[in-house]
């Protein structure tokens, strides 16, 4: 039993690397562009499909396929932002959601039309990497591929962090995230910064898609689930923080693999429940903060409840120390 838990913790943590890569792209878009791309998961699947096709049909070695695919996807992200997203963003929060969910539907079904419903995998193309593993003391099995994915995640997120901190583009992106108008006053084109962020986000999604296809199988309809995992990791880790995204991904991965110990369906559910718990915790904390702290807000709630039960006069809406509209 103990070994099983240890094994699950380890595998879940490593799985978190995959989630962190796909979540980092989503987080970058939310943090910088304030835009949630609901087709983010479908971009991951597209990246996987393109890589698989280059490898299986084109006969290109896997690594080369990835090297060709990633810049192409970056370009696609850039163009997509310049044509679709930027236009959609002019219509408030509504149009981005409509446009990207439409894009998701178009991508999923377009990929189904092109590639059919068969599940596809890169597993066969990467040889022994897909199953090779190290045996640790105590009989713990450590797959080489999960370790590779996790190490890549740490490297990619570290590189992204350095890029944002140390390069001209990175500073421009951060400045735009913080105050687009002030960034423009410094000579930064916020549109260019947004397009660059979109290109990076799609590249990260596509890279994650490749790992998804190496670890297991993808179908044209795998995208929405990946978006949901990415969103969960982002929310668990804290929106807009790269380090948080890595932790969020690992928490999600660990909860899923622990849930998987209970039952096969438990894996997804455990992930969802951790997400919902984090959400409830965060919203309650904000609610308490807006009502003068935990103690005051709980006390007021108790008074309100008692008055309601005994039919007395209504209690004040909030603690006297707090201010501002609800």
């Amino acid at each position, binding site marked *: 039993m103990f070994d099983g838990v240890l094994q699950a913790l380890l595998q879940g943590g490593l799985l978190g690397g995959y989630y962190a890569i796909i979540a980092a792209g989503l987080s970058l878009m939310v943090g910088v562009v304030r835009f949630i791309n609901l087709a983010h998961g479908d971009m991951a699947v597209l990246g996987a499909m393109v890589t698989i096709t280059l490898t299986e049909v084109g006969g290109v070695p896997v690594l080369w396929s990835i090297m060709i695919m990633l810049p192409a996807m970056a370009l696609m992200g850039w163009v997509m932002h310049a044509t679709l997203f930027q236009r959609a963003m002019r219509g408030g929060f509504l149009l981005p959601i409509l446009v990207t969910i439409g894009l998701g539907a178009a991508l999923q079904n377009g990929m189904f039309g092109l590639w059919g419903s068969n599940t596809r995998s890169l597993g066969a193309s990467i040889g022994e990497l897909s199953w090779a593993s190290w045996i640790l003391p105590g009989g713990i099995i450590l797959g080489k591929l999960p370790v590779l994915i996790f190490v890549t995640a740490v490297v990619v997120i570290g590189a992204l962090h350095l890029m944002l901190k140390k390069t001209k583009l990175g*500073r421009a992106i951060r400045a735009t995230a913080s105050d687009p108008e*002030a960034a*423009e*006053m*410094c000579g930064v084109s916020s549109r260019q910064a947004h397009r660059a962020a979109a290109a990076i986000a799609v590249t990260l999604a596509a890279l994650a898609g490749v790992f998804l296809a190496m670890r297991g199988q993808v179908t044209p309809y795998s995208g929405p689930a990946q978006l949901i995992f990415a969103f969960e990791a982002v929310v668990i880790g804290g929106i807009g923080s790269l380090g948080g995204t890595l932790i969020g991904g690992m928490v999600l991965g660990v909860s899923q693999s622990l849930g998987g110990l209970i039952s096969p369906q438990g894996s997804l559910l455990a992930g969802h429940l951790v997400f919902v718990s984090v959400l409830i915790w965060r919203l309650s904390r904000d609610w308490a903060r807006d009502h003068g702290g935990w103690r005051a807000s709980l006390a007021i709630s108790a008074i309100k409840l008692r008055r309601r039960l005994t039919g007395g006069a209504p209690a004040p809406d909030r603690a006297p120390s707090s201010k501002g509209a609800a």
Partner: protein
Amino acid sequence: MMTRLIVENLTCRHGLLTAVRDVSFALRAGEVLCVIGANGAGKTTLMNAIAGTHRPVGGRIALDGVDVTAQPAFARVRSGIAMSPEGRRLFADMTVRENLLIAAENGRAGDWTLARVLQAFPQLRPLTDMPAGRLSGGQRQAAAIGRALLTNPVVLLLDEVSLGLSPAAVEGVYQSLAMIKEARTTTMVVVEQDLTRALGFADQVLCMAEGQTELQGMPGHLSREQITDAYFGIHDKELSDV
């Protein structure tokens, strides 16, 4: 000498409200214009329109004879118009050095370097690695002006220079601005609430009330009374004849 900045019949709206109506002025290289007026007179909107963050509904802005009215803000910075905005608008999570670097990297090439800005604003020297969000009011203003200068502008727009600053901080900022003015290369448009300060510093004064130009001219040619009347938007036949 060529006119550096021309603003012609500029009109700006916020929804239904006309915030700036038919404002015109022209400035030569190195000249300083102070814009004065009560709160809500349209000064900040005028500044934003010149900087490119507010799109005017009418009129024209030209820099060195080139019409820049249609240019977005970032392109105007690259053409040579930079602003230290109302509220400073520093990137709070980024360090002072990063705030300055962004301007230097994305603006024009020129004499202003990080070292020279730190020389002009010595109070920033020990703070370069501090997040901009933790600076005091005076330090923030210095950083915002430094950031604008690092884009190497030919026209520098300074909104609400002394708002919220201690008298000592105001003195420090104006000492630095005086150095810039002495060089007579950078044209400045300054929004200043302190009348004495504005009249002492400006080559030209523009007084606005309710979006319109009430009074315009060289400080030496205007009486204190004329200016205070214009400031409060008092319309008087005798005054409008001046």
